[in-house]
């Protein structure tokens, strides 16, 4: 990496490759294709929208690795970041 790249914090292509692979390998290992992830996302939006007003564009779900609580090693985990706009108070329809 040249001094220029260091000073201007240009991300190296190796870093890009590593980050892309991290997510790719987890989704490959869990057999979770982008299509399945999209279906899960839409179902989550449908369920949560019954109770809260959520920002469906800002919603982000990913399969990641997390430390297992019961055994050594890591297990896949579904990570969801769901921004809430407003609670639907009293609307228990």
């Amino acid at each position, binding site marked *: 990496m040249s001094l220029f790249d260091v000073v201007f914090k240009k991300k190296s292509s*190796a870093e890009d*490759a590593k980050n892309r692979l991290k997510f790719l*390998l987890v989704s490959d290992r869990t057999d979770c294709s982008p299509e399945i992830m999209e279906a899960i996302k839409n179902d989550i939006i449908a369920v949560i929208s019954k109770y809260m007003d959520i920002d469906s564009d800002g919603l982000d779900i990913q399969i990641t690795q997390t430390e297992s609580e019961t055994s050594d090693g890591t297990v896949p985990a579904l990570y969801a970041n769901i921004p809430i706009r407003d609670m639907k108070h009293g609307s228990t329809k």
Partner: protein
Amino acid sequence: MSEVIVVTSGKGGVGKTTTTANVGTGLAKLGYKVVLIDTDIGLRNLDVVMGLENRIVYNLVDVIEGQCRLQQALIKDKRNENLYLLPSAQTRDKTSVSPEQINALVEELRKDFDFIFLDCPAGIEQGFKNAIAGAERALIVTNPEVSAIRDADRIIGLLEANGIKKIDLIVNRIKMEMVEEGNMLSIDDVVELLAINVIGIVPDDKNIVISTNKGEPLVGNDTLPGKAYENICHRIVGEEIPFLDLSVNKGFFAKIGSLFKRN
């Protein structure tokens, strides 16, 4: 006790055949009796890399179909009397043999050899299933780039699902100058991604092309890949050998730094 090792990768063109030829030759040089089986039916290549293409009389499919005896199909290496090749058939396809047949063949070879290498075709279909059938150990060959790493990860999963627990990785064709400028995945990156033991690191080197042109594996000679392959052979038999220093360190600051560094 003999050991049956499959050399596999998922992705094509990463260096499986070159690895098989060099690691097999290297182990034979160490005094072990070694046989290399080319399981890439239809795309025979291990014979040319070994420089034995003119000596083929019978092939793997002939043996399986009973057209000849196993001993008749085995080709003795030009340079090393401990080393034999069982070539693949060029005019047949992967369905010509089954995993059970390969397994039976491997069991027969165990009587005469210390190491039996199966050079696996690319892909994860029939040819892959045939090649892993008789193996108890695997060498995965990969390159430090996204598609090869992705395929290697898939292969690791498939090998584990098939009960092969002893799996080691060879990172082939690494370009240290690109790693140092941040444009190629490093060994640490690969280990972090694949979570698997690295048994060898082989630099991208023009001597590999030269050796393939001649049909003479370069293991053990005075080149970086020659030494890297030799080290892999020692590690396969359980010796602990440190990895070669492949760093290029061409920058000004690196040069200054190396003045102060003790080796």
